[in-house]
């Protein structure tokens, strides 16, 4: 446990230092970045009386923000960032972080203070209740800090620490409370590091979850991301994920897999730039033959040749079934792979990591359906799909998209044949990470969440699809035509599409080459006969 946390601490500290050193150079806040040397903002927050402090707690800063931004709190409380609930129009499912199970740490519920450290609020300690209702429970700073010094402490349900606090536990390293007055006076538009403070660390550490989102995007070289690189366009996340009253566009539950609106013109389109077509239009290439591909291929399919390209590995395999093994002294075990990434931790089981991972591809119409807690599993036919992509080659709304496919093994109820909530985090006598006992952890998760559990469990292999859409490479690094148009195609087995160079008729080829060979043979025999007979004639 300590080893694991030490590693996380290392990541976190490295990240903090990195952010602090880069924040002025590359905050990624293009929307307020000086243009031609002129600041574009009309307010200097350091001059605001309300922001001079002193502030004992982060909520006090929020209260100060709300004195001017009177509607901001209510706006935030309407968003998915706050509710962690998402009503899916197409599938009718209720999704969101409060509802879904993923193939990383399972469910947020029963792991609150750890998981809710990424909630855009303060003090959501019990997810059986809605998020805290107080006006000042909204966290303005996690998104609007420009100093890089604000850090939601991993175990405090969204709060930064207000006293010097050891992290990781047992490491002897102390995290100091943030200078809330200084941070408050330096608020600004959200940059890459703000969004990344949560979204780059999904799954528990840097780069673990998405594959195309990790801290390498805070200050990426152009080769990693043409849009976000300071050498390129220096975009912040919100340059594409446009916001309207604090609601951020772009969803992984209901993606826009085929934007037919094209370039977004104010007043005419959907006010969302969270699609490539929003800026690049519907015929973005100079070469017409390339434009012939956009009806079938997502831009990302060619323009993101691989993910996890920034030097941060992403998890590709997580087998929970082996968690809990201890060494002969009863101490947790930690094993590293050849690259120094953990390959086994007693808390979490076996891992595999990948860098420069070639995506897998699937037809996708944007709709993702989840296997939720309580949904029956087809345990006869593993792996179980934690989420399913909808889409087909024929419905005209789907395109071929790249995905990170996360694989692993997760606990399930052998009687009820459903996935189970897992109580992994907590300084108590039931959490997996403190006690290394699945029996206790699963029973506690059921008791705490109220989700049914027969008491009998086993592990089943699962898959989970994560759309790849960031880390867009420079055009010259796009996937080469021949990567798909050949026998061993990237898109092999996808179906629904005829790809020259990949598809064809075996029989046509056999007959064709047989005729060619027969012709050559006939020519050869005839020529030899001519030679022989001309020799006789000469005699």
């Amino acid at each position, binding site marked *: 446990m300590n080893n694991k946390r030490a590693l996380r601490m290392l990541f976190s500290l490295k990240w903090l230092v990195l952010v602090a050193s880069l924040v002025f150079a590359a905050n990624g806040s293009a929307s307020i970045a000086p243009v031609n040397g002129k600041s574009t903002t009309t307010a200097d927050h350091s001059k605001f009386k309300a922001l001079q402090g002193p502030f004992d707690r982060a909520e006090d800063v929020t209260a100060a923000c709300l004195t001017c931004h009177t509607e901001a709190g209510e706006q935030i409380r309407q968003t998915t960032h706050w509710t962690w609930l998402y009503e899916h129009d197409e599938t009718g499912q209720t999704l969101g972080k409060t509802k879904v199970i993923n193939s990383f740490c399972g469910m947020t519920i029963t792991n609150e203070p750890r998981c809710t450290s990424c909630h855009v609020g303060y003090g959501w300690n019990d997810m059986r209740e809605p998020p805290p209702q107080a006006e000042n429970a909204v966290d303005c700073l996690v998104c609007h800090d420009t100093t890089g010094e604000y850090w939601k402490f991993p175990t405090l349900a969204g709060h930064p620490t207000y006293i010097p606090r050891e992290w990781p536990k047992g490491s002897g390293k102390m995290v100091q409370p943030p200078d809330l007055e200084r941070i408050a006076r330096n608020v600004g538009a959200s940059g890459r590091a703000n969004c990344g403070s949560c979204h780059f660390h999904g799954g528990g550490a840097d780069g673990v979850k998405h594959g195309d989102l990790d801290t390498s995007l805070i200050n990426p070289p152009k080769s990693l991301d043409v849009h976000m690189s300071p050498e390129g366009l220096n975009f912040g996340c919100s340059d594409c994920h446009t916001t309207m009253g604090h609601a951020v566009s772009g969803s992984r539950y209901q993606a826009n897999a085929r934007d037919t609106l094209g370039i977004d013109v104010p007043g005419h389109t959907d006010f969302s730039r969270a699609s490539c077509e929003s800026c690049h239009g519907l015929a973005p290439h100079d070469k017409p033959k390339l*434009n*012939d591909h956009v009806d079938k291929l997502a831009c990302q399919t060619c323009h993101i040749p691989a993910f996890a390209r920034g030097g941060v590995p992403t998890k590709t395999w997580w087998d929970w079934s082996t968690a809990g093994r201890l060494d002969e002294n009863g101490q947790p075990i930690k094993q590293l792979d050849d690259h120094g990434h953990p390959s086994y931790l007693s808390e979490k089981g076996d891992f595999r990591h990948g860098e420069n991972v070639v995506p897998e591809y699937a037809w996708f119409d944007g709709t993702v359906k989840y296997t939720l807690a309580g949904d029956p599993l087809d345990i006869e036919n593993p792996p179980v799909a934690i989420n399913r992509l909808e889409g087909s080659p024929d419905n005209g709304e789907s395109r071929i998209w790249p995905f990170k496919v996360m694989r692993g093994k997760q606990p399930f109820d052998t009687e009820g044949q459903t996935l189970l909530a897992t109580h992994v985090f907590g300084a108590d006598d039931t959490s997996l990470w403190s006690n290394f006992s699945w029996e206790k952890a699963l029973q506690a998760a059921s008791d705490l969440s109220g989700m049914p559990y027969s008491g009998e469990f086993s592990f089943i292999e699962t898959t989970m699809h994560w759309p790849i859409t960031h880390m867009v490479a420079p055009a010259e690094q796009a996937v080469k035509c021949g990567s798909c*148009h050949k026998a061993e195609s990237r898109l092999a087995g996808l179906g629904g599409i005829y790809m020259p*160079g990949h598809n*064809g008729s075996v029989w046509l*080829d056999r007959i*064709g080459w047989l005729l060619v060979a027969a012709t050559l043979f006939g*020519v050869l025999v005839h020529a030899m006969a001519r030679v022989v007979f001309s020799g006789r004639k000469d005699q």
Partner: protein
Amino acid sequence: MSRVLMFKRFERFWHWTQALLIFVLLFTGFAIHGSYDVMRFSTAVQVHTMAAWALIVLWIFAIFWHFTTGEWRQYIPTRDGLFAVMHYYLVGTFTGAAHPYKKTSRAKHNPLQRLAYLFFKLIISPIIWASGLLYLFYNDWPATLAGALQLETVALVHTGAAFAMLVFVIAHVYMATMGKTLTSYIKPMITGYEDLDSH
């Protein structure tokens, strides 16, 4: 012996340019098809497309030339003497018999040639072009066409016709060596002039 202008300047230009383009198209076409891996797919597609357009332009001129000069009559098929020619290539050429067909500049193709070239011009080439253009403009098919025709069908027809073209080219190149000497049929295709036995 009389020296006759057998192939006019445009005809020779047409023949050799077409030959070059067909070699390029066959080579890049089978590269696109995945038969061998010697060039980048995108290069093969670009060269194939450009060569196809060049051949189409050449053919527009050639069709115009055939009709304005009346040279199209050279390809009117006939059974008269066809079997004699076939017999010559299968037997006579080994026994030292003379070629049964006496060519003139107004009827320069023997009956077998007429058939072969007519097949090339009216069957293989049109199929390759039609399927090739459909292939190239697949994304611009009108809805009624897209509903009735699969890209796969077009691709298979195109590939099949390409095999037929390859067979034609092999046989044609070989038979071009079957004059009195290896080059006696090829020389007139270059210089235009052929020495004919006087009747």
